[in-house]
């Protein structure tokens, strides 16, 4: 790979008829998402109440640029921006800014006024996504989410006259501040998976498990793949980090290569991995943090209450994979 690989001129890209309309619409959504992050970056940068304005500004700014223009920047430049945004996150220099969280009194009052109608904007995004996937498959579910967000915003504006575009921006900035730098973790885990794959980690794992699987035996291949997902997820604390490596290392050579349905096998491998997430203290935000939040004496109380769910669901999925493959 060279430094300029991946560079494209956005004007040329957008006017290229070979690029699908759905791709272009999706890119517009990424531009909006990038702008939302850049809004957060600028507000935090000039926020006197933010204890780390520069770190917060760098983090949200770099994320915003990658979201907004990643499609056209050289791959290596995106890589540098991503490394740059991890730095304030690692040194805990991404902080919350001035919070304009609505008072309990206000939200209670709104709940009284609006009531159960508030679920309409809550559902409209998912419904729109499914509608696009079923009725307008050329545009796809992602574009449906974008349209759903617009519909949702229109409902919210009709429910409450005080809801202006600036309210949405302020509220989204507050939400981003609360979620903080961990919001990039899923994408970073995907990158870890890609680096593992690029480095040949998948091939090494394939060599390790090869003696376990009789040649051409798809059933054993599925079982090893699924259990490998559970084990690797437990080790890494996250199924997202596991799925790429396990699929390249085991799923592809020992199951898919024998003609199994990739939709069934890989999707269920991921959700089988989730059973691993339920059983590992490595997934601290799901299994350990709640123990502190709920003030439970036994540190592993959440995991202990999840094992008897995770194991049957795991077996169910392995049987399903074998039956549907």
């Amino acid at each position: 790979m060279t430094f300029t690989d991946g560079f494209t001129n956005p004007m040329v890209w957008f006017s290229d008829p070979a690029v699908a309309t759905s791709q272009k619409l999706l890119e517009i959504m990424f531009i909006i998402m990038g702008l939302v992050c850049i809004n957060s970056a600028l507000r935090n940068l000039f926020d006197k109440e933010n204890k780390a304005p520069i770190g917060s500004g760098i983090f949200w700014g770099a994320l915003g640029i990658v979201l907004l223009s990643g499609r056209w920047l050289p791959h290596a430049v995106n890589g540098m921006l991503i490394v740059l945004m991890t730095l304030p996150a690692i040194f805990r220099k991404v902080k919350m800014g001035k919070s304009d969280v609505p008072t309990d009194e206000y939200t209670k009052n709104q709940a009284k006024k609006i009531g159960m109608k508030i679920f309409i904007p809550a559902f409209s995004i998912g419904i729109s996504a499914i509608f696009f996937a079923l009725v307008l498959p050329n545009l796809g579910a992602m574009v449906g989410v974008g349209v759903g967000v617009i519909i949702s915003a229109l409902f919210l504006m009709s429910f409450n006259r005080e809801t202006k575009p600036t309210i949405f921006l302020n509220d989204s900035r507050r939400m981003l501040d609360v979620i903080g730098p961990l919001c990039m973790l899923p994408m970073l885990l995907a990158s870890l998976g890609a680096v593992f794959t690029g480095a040949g980690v998948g091939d090494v794992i394939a060599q390790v498990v090869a003696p376990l699987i009789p040649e051409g035996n798809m059933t054993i291949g599925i079982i090893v793949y699924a259990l490998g997902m559970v084990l690797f997820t437990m080790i890494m604390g996250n199924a997202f980090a596991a799925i790429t490596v396990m699929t390249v290392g085991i799923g592809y050579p020992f199951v898919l290569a024998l003609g199994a349905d990739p939709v069934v096998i890989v999707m269920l491998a991921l959700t089988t991995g989730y059973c691993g997430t339920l059983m590992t203290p490595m997934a601290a935000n799901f299994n350990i943090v709640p123990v502190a939040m709920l003030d439970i004496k036994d540190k592993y109380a959440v995991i202990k209450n999840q094992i008897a769910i995770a194991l049957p669901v795991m077996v169910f999925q392995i049987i399903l994979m074998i039956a549907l493959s």
Partner: protein
Amino acid sequence: MEFSELIKLLGIVIVIIGFILKLEPILIVLLGIIVTAIVSLMDPITLLGTIGNSFVANRGMAIFILILLVTGTMERNGLRESAAKLIGKVKGANPGKVIGAYGIMRSFFAMFNVSFGGVAGFVRPVIMPMAIGAVEAKGVVPNEKHVDTIKGMSSGMENVAWFFWQVLFITGGGNLLVQSTLAGLGIEVELLELVRVVIPVAIFALVWAIVYYNLKDRALRKKYYGDAVDKTKE
């Protein structure tokens, strides 16, 4: 196997050690990436390019940022309060029933990628008082161990419902990752097909979680409060 091959697994070891030492998760992942690149002799430009390319290819996983544009404003307009009111409609409750009802509600909303603030924002302020209140309503003092199990089960339901039902949200992060992983292997799949496959898993996981937690809760109530519970019809 050759040592030069096995050493490639060092990145995985680093990740494990990082988690055991409770380092910052982003630092752990970055270290895993860098160490793997070094031991496999990847040049820096290829490394940066690989990180950048895959991150950009998986930008769809950040779609929640677009959804956040309205999430905060929904909360401003009473989403959480209305959800609390909705689950408050469960009558004649015991802890198992409350947790089961929460599981159904959370699963249903997870399909639409809607969450009510997690353990801190919803389980602690809404579900716990309801579940423990249901025990007190029977005129007994809640046993400490029973309360801890109720807390553990509530968190468990929170996770199980979200994990297995959020994959039914068509552009959920997991679905997009499976799609891009398969695309990397030259296999194109539709998001809708992926959703269809997990429907039976979602149903099985939720039903089993509800049944199991109710049985467990019933056994504990019998153990700790004995007759006091059996007399009141559930």
